């Protein structure tokens, strides 16, 4: 077993490379190509998961060498720390069902000649994210980071004949590269001061100090924040997710975002020494903003995948908020509280990956069956796709934080950490905790509304279009992964104690954290080790709900009166799809309540023929203001463009001008350096 773990990661990378090569060779045989690429991906994921689980259970990091470039003496080595292992495990847990799903889904969604490209990009993406998680030095990390960005961009641009896809891929590339630029500068500053390129030396916490430390933090915050999709660095996310094939969107949401989170953890939170109070505040504010604004924007979307993308921003915000709370606790020397907050945040990484993966896969099935992403054209799908509907419902309940499912424990833990933070930290900044808790409560409620709307409008009532009326259930290969993820939602929700126990090793491996006593109350319950903490056992809910269900079933079974089927009463009218509640109408009250945030623009046109009181047709158009795009990014882009125009004067296209630059530079250098000795 030990030997297997030692070679597990190199073997996984080798499997991925072989898979990519085989996929490329099989370019002409789409079906074989699909199976090869996805089965290879599954094999590699199983290998990495074995390593990850071993590290989590034993608590012993696994390190090794991937490659050595002799000429430049650059070493590509890896180290699976417990933190890396946790993210690696999440990646494997979601990557495997997504790969299974993709076997059937790509057959439908990807044109045959592109199968090899998409299949290899899928493997490249997963492999590079694995490499990001386990990299033990700057060079390895940045290489993997960049490959990850490029692979994602390629996958987003799969439908490159469409302008929107190209635009989304371009936006993603530009934003990612700005982020990567920040990272490179930050890493180089650290490396220059530490005199080393490997992470253990760089992240000892005492490499830089003072203003430089603040600067490095800011660079990392922006650099990783872009990938984590937190507001205000989120604008690429709602564009890129809908453009990619659905299984890739699931991968991006569950995996790519976590790469950013991992970066925030490893380098911002626990890489630069004891966190500054201001950093913690920045994390908490950004987390709160992302959570509340993400869910508010999600509420008004009619594009199902765009809605899920905004919800990803929300969950990313919750995770960052947990990390921010932990950093605040650390800044005030509260290691136990910090441990609870970190556990909550890391648990949410896992839970979000599982239910968001499930929801994106469900959305993929729906989009495949109806041919549209617009929920206003769906409806009545539950009758036509009962299994997909059930799994989507489980995902929607989980993301809404309903007890017994996995969204609940991590949000509950986050609440506990926030509520306790107020009493155990001094000063005015502690006000951040109750404010964050309040906003988080609002976020959870709004998320529930959002998914009631998403599920109700698309799955319930009557079909709104012929495409929806003719929808068919997805094939077995697409249903099984959803079933697996839905089961995982239930298991993780019922046994949060087991998850927490696994997490404890991860939490205490981080510098400055410790737990006083186990946070678990058996496999079923959670009870963080501070007396003021509440304890919770979701299993009790399960028993109550199960009992109620059994009672209801018994009551129905022994009822005397006969069952009678009748059409729904419609006040004497006829029920058609046109009488249904629309998605826009559903979110209208919230739109009006939060008018100051949305700043909607409405336009109502009535086409009249006889009298203005009897319009023949009413057209309603509504648009919410893209605040960040308009007030942050448009001016920024304008500034950059103006700067670029100014630079163009330098590039005159005249050889003489260029030669003059050389001459002037030579004279300046000569005068400057020549006179010194």
């Amino acid at each position, binding site marked *: 077993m030990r030997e297997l773990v030692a070679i597990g990661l190199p073997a996984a990378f080798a499997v991925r490379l072989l898979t990519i090569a085989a996929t490329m060779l099989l370019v002409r045989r789409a079906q074989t190509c699909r199976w090869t690429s996805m089965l290879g991906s599954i094999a590699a994921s199983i290998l990495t998961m074995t390593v990850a689980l071993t590290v989590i259970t034993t608590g012993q990091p696994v390190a090794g060498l991937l490659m050595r470039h002799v000429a430049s003496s650059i070493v590509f080595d890896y180290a699976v720390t417990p933190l890396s292992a946790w993210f690696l495990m999440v990646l494997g847990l979601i990557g495997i069902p997504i790969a299974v799903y993709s076997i059937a889904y790509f057959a439908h969604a990807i044109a045959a000649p592109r199968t090899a490209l998409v299949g290899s990009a899928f493997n490249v993406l997963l492999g590079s994210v694995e490499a990001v998680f386990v990299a033990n030095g700057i060079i390895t990390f940045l290489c993997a980071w960049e490959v990850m960005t490029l692979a994602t961009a390629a996958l987003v641009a799969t439908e490159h004949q469409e302008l929107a896809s190209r635009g989304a891929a371009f936006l993603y590339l530009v934003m990612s590269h700005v982020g990567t630029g920040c990272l490179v500068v930050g890493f180089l500053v650290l490396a220059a001061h530490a005199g080393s390129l490997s992470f253990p030396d760089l992240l000892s916490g005492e490499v830089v100090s003072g203003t430089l430390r603040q600067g490095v933090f800011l660079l990392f915050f922006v650099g990783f924040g872009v990938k984590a999709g937190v507001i205000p660095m989120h604008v690429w996310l709602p564009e890129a997710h809908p453009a990619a094939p659905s299984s890739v969107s699931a991968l991006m949401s569950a995996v790519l975002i976590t790469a950013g989170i991992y970066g925030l953890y490893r380098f911002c939170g626990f890489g630069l020494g004891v966190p500054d109070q201001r950093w913690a505040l920045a994390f908490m504010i950004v987390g709160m903003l992302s959570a509340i604004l993400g869910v508010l924007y999600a509420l008004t979307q009619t594009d199902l995948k765009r809605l899920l993308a905004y919800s990803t921003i929300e969950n990313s915000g919750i995770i960052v908020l947990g990390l921010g709370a932990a950093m605040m606790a650390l800044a005030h020397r509260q290691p136990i509280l910090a441990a609870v907050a970190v556990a909550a945040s890391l648990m949410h990484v896992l839970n979000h990956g599982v239910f968001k993966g499930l929801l994106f896969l469900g959305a993929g099935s729906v989009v495949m069956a109806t041919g549209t992403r617009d929920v206003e054209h769906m409806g009545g799908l539950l009758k036509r796709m009962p299994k997909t509907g059930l799994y989507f419902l489980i995902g929607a309940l989980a993301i809404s934080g309903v007890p017994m499912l996995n969204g609940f424990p991590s949000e509950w833990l986050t609440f506990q950490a926030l509520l306790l933070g107020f009493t155990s930290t001094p000063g005015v900044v502690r006000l951040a905790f109750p404010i964050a808790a309040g906003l988080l409560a609002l976020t959870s409620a709004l998320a529930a509304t959002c998914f009631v709307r998403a599920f109700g409008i698309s799955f319930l009532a009557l079909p709104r279009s012929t495409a929806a009326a003719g929808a068919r259930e997805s094939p077995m290969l697409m249903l099984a992964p959803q079933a697996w993820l839905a089961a995982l939602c239930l298991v993780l929700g019922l046994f949060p104690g087991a998850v927490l126990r696994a997490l404890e090793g991860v939490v205490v491996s981080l510098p400055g954290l410790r737990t006083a006593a186990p946070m678990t109350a058996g496999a079923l319950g959670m009870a963080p080790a501070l007396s003021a903490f509440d304890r919770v056992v979701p299993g009790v809910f399960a028993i109550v709900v199960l009992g109620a269900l059994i009672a209801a079933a018994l009551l129905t079974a022994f009822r005397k009166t006969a069952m009678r089927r009748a059409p729904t009463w419609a006040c004497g009218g006829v029920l058609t799809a046109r009488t249904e509640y629309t998605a826009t109408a559903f979110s209208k009250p919230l739109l009006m309540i939060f008018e100051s945030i949305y700043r909607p623009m409405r336009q109502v046109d009535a086409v009249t023929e006889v009298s203005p009181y009897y319009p023949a047709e009413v057209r309603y158009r509504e648009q919410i203001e893209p605040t960040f795009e308009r007030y942050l990014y448009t001016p920024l882009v304008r500034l950059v463009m103006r700067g670029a125009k100014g630079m163009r004067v330098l590039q*005159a*296209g*005249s*050889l*003489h001008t260029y*030669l*003059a630059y*050389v*001459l002037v530079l*030579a*004279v300046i250098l*000569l*005068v400057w350096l*020549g*006179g*010194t*000795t």
Partner: protein
Amino acid sequence: MTSNILILCATGMLVSAYLMVGQKALLTTIRLYGAQSLLLGIVATTIALAEGRHELFVTAALTVTLKAALIPWFLLRTVDRIGIHREIEPALNVPASLLVCLGLTVVGYRVSTGFLEGARGVGHHLIGVALSLLLIGLFLMVTRKKAITQILALLTVENAVFLVAIGVTEGMPFIVELGISFDVILAVLVLGILVQRIVGRFESMDISRLSKLKG
């Protein structure tokens, strides 16, 4: 005696560069370059005789045959063939150019005192002349528009580098010297052909028209 000859030759090279700046006729400019290279050959020979570095005789022979004879001959032939004999409109007029070159010479001499070898009398002059020559060569490239003048400017820069190499340092390794010589010949050949092509295409050898190729 030796140092007097060296300083005289070096100054002669500088003067030839000044004359090139002040000259508009292409044929005369080419001949001036030939004279400059001849003076460089004399410098090499003088050092070879005075310090007993016999490998410098080869350098001198190469310099004289290639740069004082072969290259000027080839360039003269090119000019004859394309039938353009005058630099019409330099970017900067002659008096202003001469003033700028004066400034560049001051910079060159000022900087030369910063070098360790600059402490010795002859070395000081050689470095000063070489740096001035280098800067004037660059300046020629910037202000002149005819491709032939550009080539001559490049060759002047190359002469400046050679002057430092043989006059101040122990000299470049022979193989490097040989390589550079052939490089120069090749460059001149290629550029000569290029000039003919440019003239054929644009009916001018004004390289500022090349900017039309920019997208």
